[in-house]
Each structure stands twice: as structure tokens, then as C-alpha cells.
């Protein structure tokens, strides 16, 4: 049982480049989330999904896009990378409740935009 997996672990991007951060969970969870964590700050929600085909914005969605074509996968897309997007990105999932249930986190993707 792998839980929540994320790829890549680390990436350096140039300003203006694009990339997709991959997230997969094998727990058959309905809810999936993308967070970013900046130094000295708490996790901030970028986007979330309550099931395949349904996504919604979180606290800091600007500059990102998501899709949820399957229960297992929830990729995060950066179209035009900016230095402000340098951060650690965590994907998470939960079974049935967005705010009253434990979330299971992946190991994170460290992104550096230069």
C-alpha cells in the first residue's frame, strides 16, 4: 500500500517554463488536495477535488491548474513558472470529508524557480 505518491521529488525551473506535478493515491479516496508550504508559513490550499471530474479553488489558486480524470490521479499544472512559486508542494487525500477528517500526505515536491 503506497498511500500518496508524488513525482518529481525536486525540480528546478526557469521563469516562464511549465511543468506538471504528479500525484497518485491508492486508497480509493474521494477527496484530493494540493498545498504549498513556503518557509516559515503554514500549508496553504491551492486546489482540491471532491471526486473525478470535480475540482475547486483553494486559498491560493492563481498560477496553477488542476484536473481530476480518475479517482487516483490529481496532477497540478504550472503554466508560466514565476519565482513566487518556489515552494514545497504537498498532495494529500481523504476519504469523505474535506475539513473533519484526517488527510494523508505525500512526501512533497520541492520546486525552485530561477
Amino acid at each position, binding site marked *: 500500500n503506497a498511500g*500518496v505518491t508524488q513525482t518529481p521529488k525536486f525540480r528546478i525551473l526557469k521563469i516562464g517554463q511549465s511543468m506538471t506535478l504528479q500525484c497518485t493515491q491508492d486508497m480509493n479516496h474521494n477527496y484530493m488536495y494540493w*498545498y504549498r508550504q513556503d518557509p*516559515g*508559513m*503554514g*500549508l*496553504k*490550499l491551492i486546489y482540491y477535488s471532491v471526486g473525478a471530474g470535480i475540482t475547486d479553488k*483553494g*486559498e491560493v489558486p492563481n498560477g496553477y491548474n488542476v484536473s481530476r480524470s480518475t479517482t487516483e490521479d490529481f496532477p497540478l499544472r504550472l503554466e508560466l513558472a514565476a519565482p513566487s512559486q518556489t515552494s514545497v508542494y*504537498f498532495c*494529500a487525500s481523504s476519504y469523505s470529508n*474535506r*475539513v*473533519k477528517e*484526517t*488527510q*494523508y*500526505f*505525500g*512526501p*512533497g515536491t520541492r520546486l525552485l524557480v530561477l
Partner: protein
Amino acid sequence: DQQVKQNSPSLSVQEGRISILNCDYTNSMFDYFLWYKKYPAEGPTFLISISSIKDKNEDGRFTVFLNKSAKHLSLHIVPSQPGDSAVYFCAASAIDMRFGAGTRLTVKP
């Protein structure tokens, strides 16, 4: 705006002693609170939670206390062990979940 604050970036305690990690919140609508633990190069893992209808919840060596009037919660670890050394995040939720910035706990042998 920081609705959930962990004002101590770090805490160091001796093995066997009590560790007390604190968390303050500003939104009185928060009704569910969680603590997560994070080791380096790993994602946060759930530790313990508490609903606003309670003021205490215990799970083994870990106890969370909630003081709604003060908008304050704390995590007590007794006795502390070197394996408890990690970053601890508190989170609070109502419509959305908000996380604190974390406190790095170091337990010295």
C-alpha cells in the same frame, strides 16, 4: 492572514520530560482541530484531533487540550522520546482548513 499561529518556531526538551506545543487561532468558527507530525523529506502524518465539543483528547503519550475561550490549543507529549523529534503542525477547520507554520521539536537523549 494567519488564522492559526504557532508562535514558537522551535522547542528543545530532555528525553523523558514533557513537551508542550502551543497553537493559537483567531477564527471563532473553527470547530475541529488536528495535530500533524512531519519528519524531514516526508509529508505530514496525522497525530491527534479534537472537536470543539471537547476540551481534552488523549491517545497514548499524546494529549491535546482545547481552551475555546482563549482560542488556544496545546499538544502535550509525555514522556518525550528522541523519536518524537519532528516538526509539529496544528490545523483548524470550519469551512476550510488552516494550518499553522509549525514548531520544530528536538528531544535530546
